[in-house]
């Protein structure tokens, strides 16, 4: 979303403290009064700018969909959109491949151990994305720990470019995405009846078959939820591609920024934002239909 309008409306939403003393009522009014502050705040900082964005994308002197038509033919937009989808899908798949075994391991731990391990999973989740990005540069950058080690081991022969390119973006992204994937799959795995595994064992099934035929299919709701959450989150990434990607790795959110600040093309920026919102909205709607995959709370 456009960050400039966010900061603008923040100040205007402050006077909503008016109903703070009115919580004692028990009638239907109390619900309205209790919900009013947040509702006003959301109207002010979310719906109003959102409406403004949609309006801007549709109005340039008169109502038209010209901005969308131009996007559809803009090579820059199409390339960035393809980039975005590629990066989001790559990040999600990598996160799935790394996250599933972790979730499987966590599910097999006794509850105490699991809690301890979960804290480690959540640690990057609680860390600022900015801090994490710089930490990643320190580890994976050209002069980073990993390359220094590789250089030392190979006598200065090997230096892998892992930052400020596609690899950097995906690395930064999975660092952010993994907790969502792991928690989501773990929810499904914990809901799985252990006796099903025992039953499969008594029927002679080996570990591999049990995984493919019993555990994986039954954890699919968690996998699908995790994938949808990951794609939704990664498709709107802004900081990570800006800090860890190269020129070729611009994503849709960065394009919005480009239009608003470099070319000052507000209709194009707005139309781009609306397209991004529509894609995310679609994914969230799909997510709503996947039940049973213990979803972690609000996304970033």
């Amino acid at each position, binding site marked *: 979303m456009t960050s400039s309008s966010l900061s603008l409306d923040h100040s205007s939403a402050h006077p909503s403290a008016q109903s703070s003393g009115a919580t004692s009522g028990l009638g239907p009014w109390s619900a309205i009064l209790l919900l009013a502050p947040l509702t006003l705040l959301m109207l002010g900082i979310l719906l109003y700018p959102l409406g403004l964005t949609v309006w801007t994308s549709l109005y340039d002197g008169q109502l038209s969909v010209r901005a969308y038509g131009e996007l559809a033919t803009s090579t820059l937009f199409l390339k960035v959109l393809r980039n975005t989808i590629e990066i989001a899908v790559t990040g999600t798949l990598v996160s799935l491949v790394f996250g599933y075994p972790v979730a499987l391991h966590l599910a097999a731990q006794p509850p105490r151990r699991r809690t301890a391990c979960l804290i480690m999973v959540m640690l990057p989740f609680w860390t600022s994305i900015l801090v994490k990005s710089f930490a990643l540069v320190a580890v994976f950058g050209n002069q980073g720990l990993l390359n220094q080690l590789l250089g030392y081991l190979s006598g200065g022969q090997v230096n892998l470019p892992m930052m400020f390119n596609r690899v950097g973006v995906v690395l930064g992204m999975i660092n952010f995405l993994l907790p969502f994937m792991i928690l989501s799959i773990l929810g499904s795995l914990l809901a799985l009846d252990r006796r099903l595994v025992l039953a499969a064992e008594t029927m*002679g099934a080996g570990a591999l078959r049990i995984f493919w035929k019993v555990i994986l299919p*039954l954890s699919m709701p968690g996998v699908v939820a995790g994938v949808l959450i990951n794609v939704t989150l990664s498709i709107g990434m802004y900081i990570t591609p800006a800090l860890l990607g190269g020129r070729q790795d611009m994503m849709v959110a960065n394009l919005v920024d480009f239009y608003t600040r470099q070319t000052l093309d507000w209709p194009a920026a707005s139309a781009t934002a609306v397209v991004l919102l529509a894609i995310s909205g679609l994914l969230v709607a799909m997510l709503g239909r996947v039940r049973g995959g213990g979803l972690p709370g609000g996304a970033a």
Partner: protein
Amino acid sequence: MTFLSASAAPASANPVSVVPTVAPAASAMVELRAVTKRYGQFEALHRIDLSIAKGEFVTLLGPSGSGKTTLLNLIAGMIMPSSGQIVIDGRDATGLPTNQRGLGMVFQNYALMPHMTVFENIAFPLQVRGLARSEIKRKVTDVLDLIQLGHVAGRRPRELSGGQQQRVSLARCIVYNPALILMDEPLGALDKKLREQMQLEIKRLHAELGITMLYVTHDQDEALTMSDRIVLMNGGRIEQEGPPDTLYFKPETVFSAEFIGSSNLIPGEVEAVENGTVTLRTALGRFPVPAPDRPVRAGEPAVLLVRPENMVLTDRPGPTGVTGRIEDSILLGGVVRHFLRCADGTTVIVQELNQPGRAGARRDDTVRAAWSVEHGRLLPPPPAR
């Protein structure tokens, strides 16, 4: 059963082949030798010795926590014994993983795969055994006919009733013709009528297929109905084992007598032993009792057991009988039970056949309950707790 004869051959092509590594122990399907299971300090099973013959239907009966499930899970390989040896079909299986034991198990809550149809559920163990597609289809269809559920083959388990689910879980077991089937309270979740129907069905399958079955229940009626042999468990030990008749008519301990059937237990002290008859002195009088197989000496404490159905209300005097006031009489369909309160406060239960126009004793009547001497049974006193 066409299904039966057909399934005999491919069973040998089973990847879970059975290689005898222990001297074949006669015809035992399962043999437990001094098996102990400890959880920390707690002994869930104490040096269990048990042998189950091929084709036998054995029931593990016992109160909650007596170790029935533990014993079953040890045989299935889901838990490992702390010490002792488990031999299955002549092969030492003590450390063998579950999936190589080649047995079947029916779970209390069915444990059907929720993401598979009924057909796929039953086909699963056959796929594990690498059978051809056509072969699988034929066998699953046959076994579905056997349990009369052909019409639900395409449904998911959650679209079936409890009884139907239970039949499917049974079918999933017998379809691969395991030599041994373990069942842990398979009928626990069903209502009484369905239970009795399923009991008969399981018995019929057992008789037709000749599979060895080890069945866990804490329902004595179920155990009496179904078993060739009952193994009565108590606190991690085998209290007594034998055919249902033996357990019912010849209990060896107070625990056995109380657990199976209802019983009148009159404690006392042995006064004399002569000519195969023991005289027991009790608070209700002196009674002659047939001498038990074990040696008894005068002066030792003992308990007299008389089953309620062996007691009669009578006016005729005799050597064995007690007098009491009828506190309550309850009608159980074909039989009537009278609860007699004796002078010292003991309650004695008398069970009579109910007949139309039965004159019968009334509440508050003072009556005499008698039994023939040979119906009394002398038990050792229960261990002090």
